[in-house]
Each structure stands twice: as structure tokens, then as C-alpha cells.
């Protein structure tokens, strides 16, 4: 997909390439989903159209759902820009949600709850990266183990300690004064959290493109050798980016609890899976905050479409998961080489920096 001749400016080429990659992966995903539906005996056309349009019926719900995966999308995107894989978004989100719930209930302050939730997630992110840098532990394994541990622990806590006596399958509720509610915009009902998320994405944008840290993150991810030449400490950048990524995932969970559901259900279905969807969001959004916003709305559309499809056609909404999976695989391809090479080089340079045998 290199320039088609000197008449096409580089900018146009890049935009066309990105559009091709994104649309191509979506198309591929839809084809596979249609095939799956047909193969299992369902009506593929109806299924696909429901998947794509089902989410549009309720814009408020659509955008609220998008909020959470916007956050988990940033959680993957920012470390990825620095050359680090954050697959721990799920666990960071769960913990963020839990800590937000506790803060909201006991300290009665919604904004504080969001902050605490974010910090909890950030701490997890820091742990994962520190284990990788200083103990050489594979961050995929660490992240997934933490995801699973936190899932069960939090389920336990909700079921046994934090349940609502009136509705035992739900946790205690967030008190009214700590809730982030809804606003009405031109006659439309919208949850406040969407705007909070937008604000955070703008903050992330600012961070990445207007601060020293953002500069260092981008250089480290694109050219670790240049980073070394410029005197940028790759280990420090990796850990900081994981701290920030975890923060966003934690905030995602907190926003869910304090601004949408106002409780956590005992099986965590309200949050389950959004960490991984966030990976798809980040990939489709090309790790760019603006792209992440658009991609999160798209994926939200898919998820809600899946629920609608399940309701009307009795097809499990997990078809949407399969679709997401194909999109992720498709998006792993063209960009892959460049990301991978810098990832590998970053790891090698990081090892040398931490004093381990290269």
C-alpha cells in the first residue's frame, strides 16, 4: 500500500491506507459472522443487519456503553504506543469498579470514587510492567492471571460482604450524592459519563501530543534506538505508560459503577469482556485518541446489536465476540510488522538497561 505515484501526497496515502485497513477488517469480520450464522442455520442477512443497526435504537445506551470501552481502549493504546502489551484491562477495570464502589459508599463522593478507581487500575498496570522489567515475567501471563484472580475475588466480595440485602445478586448501591447522573441535550437523554470519558480522552490526547512524557512514549515505541540516542529511559517510559493505561481501565470500571449501573452485579456481567473489546477498539482506532472514540462507538454498536440480535432471533450475542475476534486478527496484519519490530527492539533494549543478559 505504498504511494501510488508522486501525485498522491504522503498524507493522502496514509489516510487511504488506514481507511482500507479499518474497513477491510470490518468487512472481513462481517463476512465471517455471516458465514457463522448461515453455517449454524440462522438467517445471516437479518443477523448482520441487526448487529449493525440494533445499537442505534437508543443513543444514550450506545454512547454510555462506548464510554467504558473508550477507557479500556486507551488502556491498551497508550502502553502499545510505548511498545508494551497491556492485556490486563479486564482486571484493572474490575478493581477500579470495586474501589470506586467502596469509595462512593463509604466516602460518599463520586469524583473521588473515580479517582480512586483509576489509581487502583494504575497500580495493577505498574505491577505488571515492573514484574516484566525486573523479574522477566511474561506480561501476558501476569495480566491474565490477575484478571482471573480479581474476577473471582470481587465476585466473592460482592456475594458475601457487599451484597444488597434487598437484591442479593447485586452489590450495595451507590448513594445518590455520589452518583453521576444524566443530562438532557436538545431533548436527548445522555449520561454524564460519556462527557467525562470524552474529557479524559482529550486529556490523553493532550498528554500524548503536548507533553514531554507523550513525546518520550511515542519515540520509544517508534524507534527505541533513537530513544536511546536521545537519552530516554525506556524502562521508565514503559512503566509510566502502563501506570497510565491501568489508570484509564480503572476509570472505565469506576465510571460504570458510579455513573451508569450504580452497583456491581454479583457475576460482574456488567463489566465482563470489555477489557478485551478495548483491545479491538485500540487497534481499530490505530492507538490514536480520536480513532479510539470512533472505534468505541462502533464496537458499542456491535455489542448492543448483538444483544438485540439475541433478543429477536434467539442467537447468542457471542456472535459479536466472534466478529470482534476476526476484526482483531485482521487488524493484526498490516500494521503488525512495524509494531512488532519496535516491540522486540524495545524489549531487547529494556533488558540491557535493567542489567539482565540481553
Amino acid at each position, binding site marked *: 500500500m505504498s504511494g501510488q505515484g508522486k501525485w498522491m501526497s504522503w498524507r493522502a496515502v496514509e489516510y487511504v491506507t488506514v481507511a482500507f485497513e479499518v474497513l477491510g477488517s470490518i468487512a472481513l469480520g462481517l463476512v*465471517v459472522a455471516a458465514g*457463522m450464522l448461515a453455517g*449454524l*442455520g*440462522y438467517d445471516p442477512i437479518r443477523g448482520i443487519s441487526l448487529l449493525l443497526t440494533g445499537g442505534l435504537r437508543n443513543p444514550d445506551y450506545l454512547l454510555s456503553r462506548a464510554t467504558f470501552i473508550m477507557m479500556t481502549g486507551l488502556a491498551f493504546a497508550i502502553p502499545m504506543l510505548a511498545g508494551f*502489551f497491556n*492485556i490486563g484491562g479486564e482486571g484493572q477495570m474490575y478493581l477500579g469498579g470495586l474501589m470506586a464502589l467502596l469509595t462512593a459508599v463509604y466516602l460518599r463522593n463520586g469524583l473521588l470514587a473515580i479517582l480512586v478507581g483509576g489509581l487502583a487500575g494504575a497500580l495493577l498496570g505498574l505491577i505488571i510492567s515492573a*514484574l516484566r522489567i525486573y*523479574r*522477566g*515475567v*511474561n506480561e*501476558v*501471563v*501476569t495480566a*491474565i*492471571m*490477575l484478571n*482471573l*484472580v480479581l474476577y*473471582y*475475588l470481587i*465476585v*466473592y466480595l460482592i*456475594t*458475601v460482604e457487599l451484597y444488597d440485602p434487598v437484591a442479593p445478586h447485586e452489590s450495595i448501591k451507590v448513594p445518590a450524592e455520589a452518583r453521576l447522573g444524566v443530562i438532557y441535550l436538545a431533548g436527548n437523554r445522555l449520561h454524564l459519563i460519556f462527557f467525562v470519558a470524552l474529557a479524559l480522552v482529550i486529556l490523553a490526547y493532550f498528554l500524548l501530543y503536548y507533553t514531554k512524557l507523550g513525546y518520550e512514549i511515542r519515540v520509544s515505541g517508534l524507534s527505541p534506538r533513537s530513544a536511546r540516542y536521545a537519552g530516554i529511559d525506556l524502562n521508565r517510559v514503559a512503566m509510566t505508560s502502563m501506570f497510565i493505561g491501568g489508570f484509564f481501565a480503572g476509570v472505565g470500571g469506576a465510571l460504570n459503577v458510579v455513573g451508569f449501573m450504580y452497583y456491581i452485579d454479583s457475576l460482574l456481567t456488567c463489566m465482563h469482556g470489555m477489557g*478485551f473489546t478495548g*483491545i*479491538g477498539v485500540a*487497534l481499530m482506532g490505530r492507538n490514536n485518541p480520536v480513532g479510539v472514540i470512533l472505534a468505541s462507538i462502533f464496537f458499542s454498536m456491535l455489542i448492543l446489536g448483538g444483544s438485540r440480535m439475541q433478543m429477536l432471533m434467539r*442467537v*447468542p450475542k*457471542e*456472535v*459479536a*465476540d*466472534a*466478529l*470482534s*475476534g*476476526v*476484526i*482483531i*486478527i*485482521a*487488524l*493484526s*496484519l498490516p*500494521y*503488525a*510488522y512495524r*509494531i*512488532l519490530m519496535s516491540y*522486540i527492539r524495545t524489549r531487547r533494549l529494556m533488558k540491557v538497561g535493567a542489567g539482565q543478559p540481553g
Partner: protein
Amino acid sequence: MELGSLASIFVIALSPMVPLLLGAVGEIITERSGVVNIGIEGILLLSALTAAVVSFFTGNVLLALLVGVATGVVLGAFHGIISVYLRGDQIVAGVGLNLLAYGLAVTSLFKIWSVFGASPPVPTMPKWVVAGHGISPMVPISVAIAVVAWFVLFRTNLGLKLRACGEDPRAAEAMGVNVMRTRLLATMLGSALMGLGGAYLSVDWVGQFSREITAGRGFIALANVAFSGWNPLIAVIGAFVFGFFDALAIYLIIGAQPTLSYVFKTIPYLGTLAVVVVFRGRGKAPAALAKPYIKE
């Protein structure tokens, strides 16, 4: 805990050991050739499904196992082509594979049996009875597979060529090895073993298919790969250790109140974490792991 129960746990541990071992040995073969496949979880899940389906409808357990293996091979070919020939990002592709497999499996589960959670019981393999527990013949078979894998990897020319691809593909190519083809075949072989492990889950151990049947074991197998230093023999020990945590959880859950079971369920994962953090860096990863080979 009395000695009798401890011995019980050791025996119980043999069951979860099988998928952890097969998954790890399969991934060792794959990674030794230079490819990372973190889609183990998804392969286990989908193979468990296909094996359960075949067993349910035909009653032929052996056929079910074979279908499970075949499922693994197909998925492995898929991942292999993406990783080796299309030079996709292997970790991202693995994440996508897991998601895709999950979606496929749950959807199919519903379509076939009209349930969202667990299928009805399916015919399973006959067992031997040891110390009051049923032990499947797959236990010694999987250990045998690990031994054979070790032998082939470290004592044959074939294994030499495969390992060369993972250490220094440029040098291997210079010495006449077809690196890309070897990597693809290694990935497919590795996934075949993972498929066997998945089939074992539904058709041998648990006796049904459920969406939680894998419970993160694919990732624990991944931890076992690093723990074993990419050596199938040590993977046997690792699989037993990680299986022990699994069994401990099962044992505690059986005896305890239902709510506490959630806490016990974390034991395998906490145990895995503890092991990988404490036993850091045994052995070196293949030097060219996860790097796509580009012929100059």
C-alpha cells in the same frame, strides 16, 4: 489436612495435569520453532466443543478425540499462516483467536443444545480406578507424548532443524532449512496437541461441555512453557505443580460452603503467579521467538 486427603489431592491433580501438559508441550514445540501462539485457550475451548459434539451424536469417544485434534490442526494452520506468511503480530492475532473461538463456541453451544451454560453429559472415556479416584489413560499417554516430544526435539535431526528455526532463522536458512514451512508445521503440530488437550477436557475429564470449561488453563499452560524452560520433560513437573493448585481448589470447594468456592477458585491463578514470579527465567527463550522471518 490429613495425609489421606493430601494423597487424594495428588491423585486428583493428575486430571487437570493433562490439558496443562498437552497445551504446554504443544506450545513448546511451536515456540521452539519461533512462533508464539497465545490462542491456546481458544483452541482448548473449540476442540472441547467439537469433541463433545461428536461424542454426543456418535457415542464414539475415540472419534471425538480425533476430531478434537483435527480442530486444533485447523486452528493452528490458521494462526500459522497469519504469523509466518502474513507476518501478523503474533500476540494480537492470538488475542483475536481466543475471542473468535469463544464466540464460535458459545454460539454453537446454544445452537446445538439450546443452552447458554453447559451441555448435557456426553459419553466419556473409560477410566481406571486408583485410590478411589478415576484416572484416565490419557494421563500416562500425555506424559508419554511429552517424553516423545523431548526426544524428537533434542535427540533427532528433525528436532535440530526445528530448534534452529527458533534460534537463528537466518543461519538455519543458510544451512538449507525451509524456515517458514517448518514454523507452520510446528505450529500445526503444537495446536494438534492442544486440540487433544481440549478434547480431553470435555470428553474425558469433565464429561460435558461448558463455556467455562477451560477456565484460563490455556494461559496457565503458557506459564508452564516458560517455567519449564521450553523443555517438555520439565513441563511434566510444571503441569503437575499447576495441576496441584487446580486440584487443591477442587478439593477445598467440595468440602466448603458454596460462597467460599469463589475464593478457592483463585488458587490456581495465584499459584501460577507465585510460581512464575519466584522461579524467574528458567532457561532462555528461543532467540528468534515471535520475530517474523524475512528472507533478504
